């Protein structure tokens, strides 16, 4: 007869399964590694960084056409064709192979008439110098040199309006500044410095991390590349890169890895199971709790987070290793229980063992959930998600096993001796080990202590993973290609982002004017190597007005210019248009450059798009990029108010360092909570220690192994360490409980179950170690060996610590024999 609580539990689990299925059907997988960065103090910087990540720069793909020698018109035509293919697809917002043909005219139109307002970034200091006699003489000397050049004919008309070459100077600065943000120009085309590559920039409509949309974009890009390669012929090669390529590739590779890992795990676990139980019909008994656990974990996480990160799924797939423990123990118990049902004394003992087993299983689940519960306190949203996913999964697998496990009793047929002979051999071997362990307990304990100390010392040599990007599943070939293509762009080395914002655009531009001057000083001092600023393209209106004001305050300006001209052998009479323009500027008729002027010109708007973000109902943001001499320097100590810096390298260094500190605290906290739970449960220090020691030593030995292998540890290694602790503690509890029960069946069930669990877990995690994804590898490398060590220690060390229990009986059995 089935009890009411069990029926209610089964009904509740069925409802939970349906609900989870409903949420899991809308599963949204995320592959953005920035989910694994902390919130809190740097939340603002992250938000601003995301503005850039989801902005135009991140949406831009770069296509590079390599030519056999300096690129000519054929290459240009090929790239134009590629651009046309991309444009007509409708998937791109903007496609450009160079600046518009009339870019020179655009610059002239935008800046020439405003040149007097753009004289200097520090007008009060510079303008009196620019227009002093000595400086004017130098300017006119330069004019003479320019007129002597073969290219002088290009400028003859212009210099009559601008003999001081103010516009030319401004253009040189702008060209230099624009060149930091875009590719170099060969004529009007984007090209590499060696002129052997022509470049095409294509900005997608979809966000770079929108895997579904970007898959279509990449398919089109691949098709276009193939077509152009064929048309261009030998010696030419077209390649492309973009953040979207990494997002799609990462998502695809992690999905493949997970599928492969799960398939291999399933096959491996099934094989191990057949080896132990000899019957296929038992396989669903272990698989169903795991599937149920996974389903509920996916459903709950999806419902609470609105999506699941690939790494959470990957880590969650390891639930296979934990979830399988519960049905294995139950099945082993049922199998041995069946054998002994005809013996009334044994049956009574078996009943007691069954209740004891349920308690052991509960404690196993409880300590694991406690361990992951500690992880849930993490400030890293990604880690919190993993914690929730794992805790829910483990609890669900346990609940399913307990609620539905008894139904499996019907699978055991009367008189069937499934694996009986093998069982006997197994029992004999383990009894031998146990007897040995008890007799040599002092040596085992001493070795364990030495192992712990040595491993602890070795683990201090562990190296930390400094670059979070190394956890992305990018193909090394793609990374290499990306690096090669990006090296063709001048500003690819600028990793520091500086965000300037204020209440309105004019105030933001004023702050940006100040930041420009600060950065110039930092460059002069050598603290930064270079920077790209919006300032030269778009100074504030205030600065332009100040320029004109200071210019107007110079007494006898026109006459001093004429005098310098005459002294340098230049005839002022030939420069009537210049003096007319100067008069206009002095009388306040000179136009000012405005953001709207730049945004209305497509060529300039493209330049502006990666530097100025104007959003509805939000403050405008100006983005400056810089490269610091020290890659970890984020300049936070010298930046003016209103400017925030974001250095991916500094940020990740800080984030990882913070994580390692936090993880250590969380693991210690988790261990403390688990220890308290176990000591509370055991009510004996020795038994508690016997339960915990294998996991603790296994964790430290695993760290030592990773150090010896030279592996750089990341947060997944550390998270996996918690997994070892949780599962290792489970093994300790099972063995310890079976010893406390002073029952041969309980002990046999525990022993057999721990070995089978460890083997299945080791197999499932071992599979992860061969995945291509570095994050999955990290889990596999840590948990695989760690769990084997924990199981071995639980089998050998726990009895040696806990005695006397069944070991005295075992000794008696041995001596009697």
């Amino acid at each position, binding site marked *: 007869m089935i009890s009411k609580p069990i029926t209610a539990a089964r009904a509740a689990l069925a409802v939970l399964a349906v609900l989870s299925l409903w949420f899991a059907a809308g599963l949204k997988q995320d592959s953005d590694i920035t989910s694994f960065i902390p919130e809190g103090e740097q939340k603002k910087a992250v938000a601003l960084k995301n503005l850039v990540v989801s902005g135009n720069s991140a949406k831009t793909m770069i296509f590079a056409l390599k030519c056999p020698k300096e690129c000519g018109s054929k290459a240009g035509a090929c790239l134009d064709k590629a651009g046309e293919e991309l444009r007509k697809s409708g998937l791109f917002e903007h496609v450009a192979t160079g600046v518009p043909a009339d870019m020179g005219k655009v610059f002239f139109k935008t800046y020439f008439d405003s040149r007097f307002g753009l004289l200097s970034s520090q007008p009060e200091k510079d303008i009196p110098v620019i227009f002093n006699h000595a400086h004017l003489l130098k300017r006119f000397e330069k004019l003479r040199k320019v007129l002597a050049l*073969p290219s002088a004919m*290009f400028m003859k008309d212009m*210099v009559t309006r601008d003999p001081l070459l103010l516009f030319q100077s401004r253009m040189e600065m702008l060209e230099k500044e624009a060149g930091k943000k875009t590719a170099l120009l060969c004529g009007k085309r984007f090209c590499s410095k060696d002129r052997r590559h022509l470049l095409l920039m294509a900005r997608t409509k979809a966000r770079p991390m929108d895997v579904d949309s970007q898959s279509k974009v990449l398919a089109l890009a691949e098709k276009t590349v193939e077509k152009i390669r064929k048309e261009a012929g030998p010696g030419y090669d077209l390649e492309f890169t973009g953040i979207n390529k990494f997002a799609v590739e990462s998502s695809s590779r992690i999905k493949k890895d997970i599928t492969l890992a799960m398939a291999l795990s399933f096959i491996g676990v099934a094989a191990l199971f057949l080896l132990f139980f000899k019957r296929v019909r038992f396989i669903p008994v272990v698989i169903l709790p795991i599937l149920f656990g996974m389903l509920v974990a996916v459903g709950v996480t999806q419902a609470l987070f609105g999506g699941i990160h690939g790494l959470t799924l990957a880590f969650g797939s390891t639930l296979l290793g934990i979830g399988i423990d519960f049905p294995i123990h139950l099945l082993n118990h049922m199998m041995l229980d069946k054998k002994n049902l005809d013996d009334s004394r044994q049956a009574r003992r078996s009943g007691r063992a069954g209740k004891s087993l349920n308690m052991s299983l509960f404690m196993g689940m409880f300590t694991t959930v406690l361990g992951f519960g500690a992880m849930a306190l993490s400030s890293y949203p990604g880690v919190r998600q993993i914690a929730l996913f794992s805790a829910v999964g483990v609890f669900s697998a346990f609940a399913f096993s307990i609620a539905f496990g008894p139904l499996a009793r019907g699978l055991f047929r009367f008189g069937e001796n499934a694996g009986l002979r093998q069982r006997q051999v197994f029992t004999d071997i383990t009894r031998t080990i146990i007897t040995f362990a008890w007799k040599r307990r002092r040596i085992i304990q001493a070795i364990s202590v030495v192992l712990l100390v040595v491993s602890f010392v070795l683990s201090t040599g562990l190296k930390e993973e400094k670059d979070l990007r190394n956890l992305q599943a990018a193909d090394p070939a793609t990374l290499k290609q990306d690096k090669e293509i990006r090296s063709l762009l001048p500003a690819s080395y600028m990793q520091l982002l500086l965000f300037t914002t204020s209440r309105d655009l004019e105030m933001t531009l004023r702050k940006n004017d100040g930041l420009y001057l600060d950065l110039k000083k930092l460059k002069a001092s050598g603290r930064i190597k270079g920077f790209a600023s919006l300032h030269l393209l778009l100074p504030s209106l205030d600065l332009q007005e100040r320029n004109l004001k200071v210019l107007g305050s110079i007494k006898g300006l026109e006459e001093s210019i004429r005098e310098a001209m005459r002294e340098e052998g230049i005839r002022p009479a030939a420069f009537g248009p210049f003096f007319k323009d100067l008069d206009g500027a002095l009388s306040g008729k000179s136009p000012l450059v405005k953001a709207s002027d730049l945004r209305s010109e497509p060529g300039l708007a493209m330049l502006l798009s990666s530097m100025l973000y104007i959003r509805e109902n939000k403050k405008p943001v100006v983005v400056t990029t810089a490269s610091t001499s020290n890659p970890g320097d984020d300049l936070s100590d010298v930046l003016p108010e209103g400017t925030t810096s974001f250095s991916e390298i500094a940020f990740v260094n800080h984030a990882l360092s913070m994580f390692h500190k936090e993880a250590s605290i969380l693991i210690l906290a988790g261990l403390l909570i688990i220890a308290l739970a176990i000591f509370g449960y055991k009510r004996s220090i020795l038994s508690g220690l016997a339960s915990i020691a294998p996991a603790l030593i296994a964790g430290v030995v695993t760290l030592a192994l990773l150090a010896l292998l030279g592996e750089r540890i990341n947060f997944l290694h550390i998270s996996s360490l918690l997994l070892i602790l949780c599962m290792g503690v489970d093994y300790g509890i099972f063995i310890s409980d079976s010893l406390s029960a002073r029952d041969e069946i309980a002990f046999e069930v525990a022993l057999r179950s721990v070995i089978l669990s460890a083997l299945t877990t080791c197999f499932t995690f071992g599979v992860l170690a061969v995945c291509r994804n570095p994050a999955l590898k990290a889990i596999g490398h840590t948990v695989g060996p760690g769990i084997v060590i924990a199981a071995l220690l639980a089998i050998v060390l726990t009895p040696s610590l806990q005695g006397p229990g069944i070991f005295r009986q075992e000794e008696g059995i041995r001596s009697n024999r």
Partner: protein
Amino acid sequence: MTGRLSLSIFFIWAITLVLPCPGNAGSAGSRVNEQHANAGSACSKRKDLVRKLSLLRTMRCSFKEVKTLEMLDEPLITRGRMYYMKPGFVHQDMTSPARQSVTIAGGKLKVTNLDLNKSEIMNLSKSKSAQAAVQSVVQVMSGRAALLEDQYECMLSNMGRIVRIILIPRTGLLKKMISRIVVTFDSSLVIKKVEIDEKKGDKSVMTFTDVVYNKPFSKEEMSKYFDL
């Protein structure tokens, strides 16, 4: 407009080598006025020029240019080297007072600041005037001299050991900007001087020395001068 003018230096240099003889130029030849009595001799000289051109594969020389500009009190003096290779490669290196090079090759005009090693390339297909000027240079240097007859009125003077050709633009921008071009050869028909008078009063006089015909360019030279 400025593109065409900037190329005039090459243009004129090329013209000096390829002026057509009336007999060879057909109807175009009738437009040539010979201002001096010794017409037979002049024609003979032009025939020699055309013949010489057809044999011309390479050329290199030094130049000195004196620019007299309305803007300046004193003329500007520049110096450098020039190179030509059939069918259409021209390179000029100015070495004094500043360093700049100009190269015409493969439909492109490249201007390089030699001190900064910084180049700007103009795609000639984007500028009709520049393209026309460069095509003129290339076609003339290749021996298709009759083309010039459409753009210039040609006059020949033979003053003893010196041959002078005077070109007066007929149409378009060139007519608006240039009054006349005078090209001077020595008795061996080696180019000596090119003078350009602009309508605004500016004047350029370019004299050539160390002229060497048909000395092949090495691979390194071809790469250096013509980006080949």
